[in-house]
Each structure stands twice: as C-alpha cells, then as structure tokens.
C-alpha cells in the first residue's frame, strides 16, 4: 500500500550536500508490521517522513495505494495524513496549551468529527491514563506524554501507523504495554512501521529493515 520508488532526499548544508536517504525502493504491504533499525543519522526519521508525506523527496515517487501523493493538492494531502496515517513522533509532540483529552481529540477536529469525546476517553483508558484526562502536557511525565501522543495517533483509526522510536525513552514495562497495543491493532489489520533501537520491539516485527548511511538493507525474517 505504500511504495517508495527510487526515493532520495538530500539537504544542502552550506557547501556540502547531506544525502539523508539515497535510492530507496521499498514496498510496505497492507497489514505489515515493519521495523526500521540503524545507526543514529542513518536516515530513519527522514525515510519515515517521506512515507507519510511530511517532506518532499528530492527525487523519486511516494505512492499510497498507487497514487503519487505529491500530485495531490495540499487539502488532499492533509486529508490523507488526517484520515489514513497516524504519526507517532520521536520526541514530545503534544500541544502544550491543550489538556490530554483535547490533544487526543485534535485529529478528529481536522476531519470535522463532532462527537469524539467518548472515543478519546476510551483511548486514554487504553494507554492507562484515564485519570489524567484534564492534565496539561506540562503536568505529565515524559512517559505519560508519550502515551497521550500514542492515543492521539490512534484517534482517527489510521490504516497506517508511522512510529519514530515510540518507546525510545520509556521503561521496559511501559515499552511492553505499548508494544502490546501496537500488536493488537496490527492484528486488526493496521499497517505499522516502527523505527526503533530496541531489540524487543524489532523482534515483534514481521520484517526488519536496516538503514545504513541513507541506504536500505533488507534482512527480512
């Protein structure tokens, strides 16, 4: 369902060009659970952003269900991100002025859904934060913020989840909880791509991809 064709992304930094992602060809099938590993700076985050249309490739095409997403209008791209893709970011990504439940509801607002309180509450319960519904992000620990963000990722029932080190700074127990959640939604057919440094997380994936200096090496299980 996501196809990267001859994708490259490079940045001009002063006189030098950083090739963050180079000539990557990749297909992610519906229902896949894929993990991407690799050294820091190898281009994992860039690759994930290319998959979700958050950044434009320097060359190559990104196809979602056969459609080149860079031929879509901004509105169509936004709708795609809103309704079909769920991002989980590497670092804290909550809006600081909104409390936990409002952060979780935010994606629903963009799709014009009015009745979303119940679902947001359920999701906060799923991540174990039912009693922190009205807390502002500043009042939550780093791990709690991550879990609220995960609830937000799930809010619009995405078909594809793109998660960038979602358990990076969490304790093992919380990591296991979150992994459970990913596995159970993957069982329901949701496609999941996880960038991770954790062996435990990578071992859950059906396929492990390794990034190395912008290049992709496949070591499928």
């Amino acid at each position, binding site marked *: 369902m996501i196809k990267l064709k001859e994708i490259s992304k490079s940045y001009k930094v002063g006189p030098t060009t950083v090739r963050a992602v180079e000539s990557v060809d990749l297909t992610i099938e519906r229902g896949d659970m894929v993990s991407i590993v690799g050294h820091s700076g190898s281009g994992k985050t*860039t690759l994930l*952003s290319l998959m*979700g249309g*958050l*950044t*434009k490739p320097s060359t190559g095409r990104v196809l979602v269900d056969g459609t080149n997403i860079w031929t879509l209008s*901004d*509105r169509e791209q*936004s*709708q795609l*991100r*809103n*309704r079909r893709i769920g*991002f989980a*970011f590497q*670092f804290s*990504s909550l*809006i*600081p*002025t*909104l409390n936990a439940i*409002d952060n979780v*509801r*935010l*994606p629903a*607002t*963009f*799709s014009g859904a*009015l*009745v*979303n*309180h119940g679902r947001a509450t359920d999701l906060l319960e799923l991540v174990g934060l039912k009693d922190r519904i009205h807390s502002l992000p500043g009042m939550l620990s780093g791990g709690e913020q991550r879990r609220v963000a995960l609830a*937000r990722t799930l809010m*619009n029932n995405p078909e594809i989840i793109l998660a960038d080190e979602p358990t990076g700074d969490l304790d093992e127990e919380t990591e296991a909880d979150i992994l459970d959640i990913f596995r159970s939604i993957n069982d329901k057919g949701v496609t999941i791509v996880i960038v991770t440094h954790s062996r435990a997380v990578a071992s859950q994936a059906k396929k492990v991809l390794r990034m190395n200096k912008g290049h992709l090496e496949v070591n499928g299980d």
Partner: protein
Amino acid sequence: MRRLGLLYLAAQNLRRKPFRSFVTIAIVGLAAGTLFSATLLIGSVHQSLEVGMERLGADLLVMPEGSAESGETALITGTPTSFYMDESVFEQVKAIEDVEQASPQIFIESMISSQCCTGHVQIIGYDPETDFVVGPWLEDNLNRPLENREVVIGSLILANKGESVHFFGTDFDVAGVLDSTGMGADESVFMSMDAAYEMALNSQEKAETFLEIQPGQISSVLVKVAPGTTVEQVAQRIKAGVPGTMVMTANDLSQSVTDRLSGFLRGFFVLDAIVWVMSLLTIAAIFSMIVNERQREIGLLRAMGGSRRFVFRLMLTEALMMTAVGGLAGILVGGAGLFIFKAVITASLGVPYLWPPLWYFGMLMAGTLALAVVTGAIASLYPAVSSSRLEPYAAIRQGE
C-alpha cells in the same frame, strides 16, 4: 462537549504569553481609543453646531464694536456677558438692503437662584414683535406668548417647568425648558425685553445689586438675509452703514469653533497615526516571533491533518482576536474617557458639545473596530502565510 474550533485554539495560544498578548491588545486599544474619542469629539461638536445654529436661526448678528470675543464665547459656551448699544442700531440694520428679518436682543449677566441652586447665567431678553428664535419654539410648545413674569430656560439651567426662579429681586415662573443644543443657549434664560426692562427698574428697590439698563438699550440684533443674496454681502453693507457695530456671521461662529478644535486635535491625530503604525509593527513583529516559536507545533498540526489553510487561518484568527479585543477595549475606554472628561475638554477648548445621534455612534464604533481588525490582518498576513508554507517535517525538526 466543547468543539476544538479555531477560536478556542487561538484563544488558548494567546493565553500562553499573557503579558505579550496584553501589551499588543493595549497598543491597539490606545490607537483605537484615541481615534474613537477624538472623532467622537469632533462629531459631537459638529452636532452641537448644527443644532445650535438652527436654534439661533439667524444668518448674522450685529453687536457693539469690541464685543466680538465675549459675544462669540457667550453664544458658543454660554459664558455670561453683557454689552450695550442704542436701539437705533436695530432700526438702522432693519433698513439695510436685503435684511429680511431683524430682531433685537438684550444680554444680562445674572446670578440665578431657584429651588435647587444658584449660579451664573445669561439672561437674554428678546423682542416678541420681531423675534424669530424663541417665538417658533413657543408656538410649538406653549401655544401662547410668554407672560411678563415668565421665562423659558435652556436645558442646563437647574430648574423645572412650573418652578419659580429669582433674578434681581423679581420672581419668574419657568414656562418651559428648551431642548439641548450643546451651545450657549443651554445655559441661557429667555424673557421678553419688556420683562427685562421692568426687572431692571424693580431692581433699584428690590435687589441687592442694581441692574443698570434702560429701555432703549440693546445688546445685539439678529438678522436673516433675503434669499438670493449672500450673508457676506449683507454683512459688508451693515459694516459700512451702521457705525459703532461689528457683524458676526453664523459661518464665523462655526469657523471659530472648528479652529479651536482643530488646533487641539491636529497634534492628537498625528500622535494617533504614530500609534497605529506602532501597533501594526508590533503585531507584525510578534507574529514573526510566534511563527518561530511554534514551528514544531505548526509542523505537528500539519502532520495530524491540519491543512495550510488551517494554519493560515489559525494565525490570522489570533491576530484578529487581539485586535478586535483591543479595538473594543479602546472604544469603551475612549468613550468612557470622553464621557467623564467631556466637561473639562469642552470648557478648556471653548467648544460646544452635544452627543451625536445613535447611528453616528454605531458607524464610528464599526469603523474603528474595522480599522483595528484590518490592521491586525495586514500585520499578521506575512507571518501567517509563511507559517502555512512550512514543510511539516522541516518545521517539526527545526523546532526541536
């Protein structure tokens, strides 16, 4: 359940830097408030001139030489004055070509004592035979001429219809109260000239202070010119034909008021223009800061499905909210300030004052608010566009 609409998100954003938002709102408020109150002041003065001049009903006034300043002040603000000339002036003026109507008046400075209070007032004695100022009002409201012991009073005189007032030892009944004009007439007491002469005569025995005027003395002659001629032409003829007098036209009066006002307001508007430019620059600077501060958040909103249009509208909404609140606050404070200091301002400027009709208020409020909001829109336009153009990934990464 509350909707997470644009307005809510924008309001939450404005709250996170309360002091900064407050300062922006205050600057816009200052700009809007000064504009609103200054324009309202102009509007009120003009309203007063319009009503007052219509009440005066004359195209020009003839007064004794050297009385120009005090006469003008008396007419505009009601500061009592007195000066006299012989009634032959009236006959001479009446005989001038193109003088259609002429009517003499006599001015008397007096203390008033009524049931409630005492104070300085201007008594104006008019000639019922020729009068065209008080007469029409009497016809409409009283339906008969004034009796000898009756007066009609301006709206600012602290007495009511039916009460009795006391001048130079004589009691008068208040037969009616005139509508407000904002001008000197509001602080004047009108009686017939005969009543005034009689009051003067009686003051010799009844009053502590004598009133030394004689029948045959008048203070001014009000003139209406014939159609088809200009007021200036007739004024010239009177100046040439009636020695010992000066002529003041209704235009002179308006012009004098306008001059007093514009001298004061010119500096005010220059200052206000500077404050508007300042608010424009402040908003532009603040929104450029906001775009930088919130890059990451903007990127996150885009990643969640917020479109460029949404980000643009969010920024614009924040700017419009601040300027609308600032504009409203300015209008309220400026309006209240004018209301409270009206007396001080008009007294120190020597201008008449009458609150304009409601539609004028409405237009002025809408106009001021619109200007504030447009300022916000213009100032935030560039930051709003550039924030909406950010690539989500770059924005998220740079904000890290």
